[in-house]
């Protein structure tokens, strides 16, 4: 549970947010997280005005873990909130992507204290932040590579516009929105950085009309960015020759059976691909995070979630071999994966052979890692005789004599108690239900 103190310096803006009806409007529209106020006696430090308790977010995710469409939706949500705020005489003083989280399948603003009174004539205070946190990574993903999103992990206050400008191809200079908001913006920032600006000066006017024009222009810029149709070796994994229909159906039946038996409160599906199996948990009302390292698969999974209006599945990009670390000031501004709450159940379907053979990870280490995260695990073991494992070993020397089903069971039994082991029909694969020791 998180408590936030509203200081006296923000009293006017906080009161206006609630008094103007903007808070109610945004909460009812599902755009702002709701909160309750605590008694005055709970104030944490002098200078405090109120203590608020926002609705908890089940899982905090970060922009560098989102696929393109998630970041785009988060950007458009920020713009939508700003437009709504203007109607109520308020504005956003922050446009950080970290202020947006995914709750019940939709992006939502979690920073109740981001609002300030709109002052006629003043430009948008968060313009630079919006360009760095949203527009620059989206443009880089659209014009360069979807993997550029990880740059946001290096630059915690968004990708510097100068860097984005230098990385974007020359043809983006012909796109007016990117030429203005990234290239010219970056150049101007550099050239005028030494100037002292009196931001309250009445000589410098930025009319309400100009403000609205700026927001519209940013909205068009974000909407105008597209991701080239992505097709990787993973996006058609289930359509390929990985499974027979009988095996696929039986696997669904087994996983559903395990979920119904254990009824976990939360599930992490590691290596979820396009989320077909994680979705089984989501459909049962279980909070599910579907992780995969492949951007295209996560993109497909997110679009499926949006199309089906799913509220329990959150697809995220995660490289299990290099999961999100603790970053920021004192290594504590952004949490690592493990610190963000452990799931009740972990699913690792068709994953172990990639970790053990493609990535040379000992089975015991994989089991240890899983054990640190969950109470229950559903793990699939695929023997060397399976065509997919054979493919992994096709062009390399088999230095994995320990990769056997017997050894797998022995290594996992040190951390887990194997409750059930079911052979998947029409395949050589086995599905295990395990309980942490």
């Amino acid at each position, binding site marked *: 549970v998180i408590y936030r103190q509203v200081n006296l310096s923000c009293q006017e803006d906080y009161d206006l947010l609630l008094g103007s009806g903007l808070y109610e409007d945004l909460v009812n529209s599902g755009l702002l997280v709701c909160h309750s106020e605590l008694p005055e006696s709970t104030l944490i430090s002098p200078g405090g005005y109120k203590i608020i308790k926002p609705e908890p977010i089940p899982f905090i995710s970060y922009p560098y873990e989102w696929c393109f469409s998630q970041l785009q939706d988060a950007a458009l949500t920020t713009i939508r909130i700003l437009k709504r705020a203007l109607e109520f005489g308020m504005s956003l003083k922050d446009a950080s992507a970290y202020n947006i989280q995914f709750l019940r399948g939709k992006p939502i603003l979690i920073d109740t204290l981001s609002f300030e009174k709109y002052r006629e004539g003043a*430009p948008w205070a968060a313009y630079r932040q919006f360009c760095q946190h949203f527009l620059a990574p989206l443009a880089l993903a659209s014009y360069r590579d979807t993997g550029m999103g990880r740059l946001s992990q290096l630059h915690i206050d968004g990708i510097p516009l100068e860097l984005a400008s230098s990385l974007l191809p020359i043809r983006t200079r012909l796109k007016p929105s990117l030429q203005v908001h990234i290239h010219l913006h970056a150049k101007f*920032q550099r050239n005028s950085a030494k100037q002292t600006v009196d931001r309250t000066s009445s000589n410098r006017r930025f009319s309400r*009309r*100009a*403000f609205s*024009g700026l927001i*519209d222009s940013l909205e068009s810029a974000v909407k105008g960015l597209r991701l080239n149709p992505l097709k990787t070796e993973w996006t058609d994994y289930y359509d390929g020759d990985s499974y027979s229909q009988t095996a696929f159906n039986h696997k669904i039946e087994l996983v559903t059976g395990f979920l119904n038996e254990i009824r976990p409160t939360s599930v992490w599906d590691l290596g979820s691909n396009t989320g077909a199996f994680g979705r089984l948990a989501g459909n049962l009302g279980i909070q599910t995070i579907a992780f995969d390292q492949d951007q295209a698969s996560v993109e497909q999974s997110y679009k499926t979630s949006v199309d089906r209006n799913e509220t329990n599945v959150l697809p995220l990009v995660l490289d299990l071999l290099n999961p999100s670390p603790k970053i920021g000031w004192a290594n504590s501004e952004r949490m690592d994966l493990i610190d963000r709450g452990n799931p009740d159940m972990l699913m690792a379907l068709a994953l172990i052979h990639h970790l053990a053979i493609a990535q040379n990870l000992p089975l015991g280490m994989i089991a240890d890692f899983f054990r640190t995260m969950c109470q229950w695990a559903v793990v699939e073991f695929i023997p060397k005789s399976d065509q997919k494992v054979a493919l992994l070993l096709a062009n390399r020397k088999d230095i994995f004599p320990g990769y056997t089903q017997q050894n797998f069971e022995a290594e996992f039994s040190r951390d887990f108690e194997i409750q059930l082991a079911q052979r998947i029909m029409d395949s050589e694969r086995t599905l295990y239900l395990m309980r942490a020791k």
Partner: protein
Amino acid sequence: MRNRIGSLCASVALIICFLWMVTMKDVHAYIDLGSGSFLFQILLASLFSSLFVLKVFWRRIIQGITKVLSTIKGQSDTQTPRR
């Protein structure tokens, strides 16, 4: 003699480097990029303002055309004899 000239050159080079460092104008840590963004918006205020006016104007034209078309369609529907 050669050593003296060498050390003199080195000293001059060091002094030049030192002077260059102390007089260098772009010290990144002191650059406020936010000011640039602030001024940039002011500079482009007329552009954003015009874009907004154009958008509103365009929307009105579209609304007008849609209204006229729907009126014409409504009239033609009422004039069509029933069979």
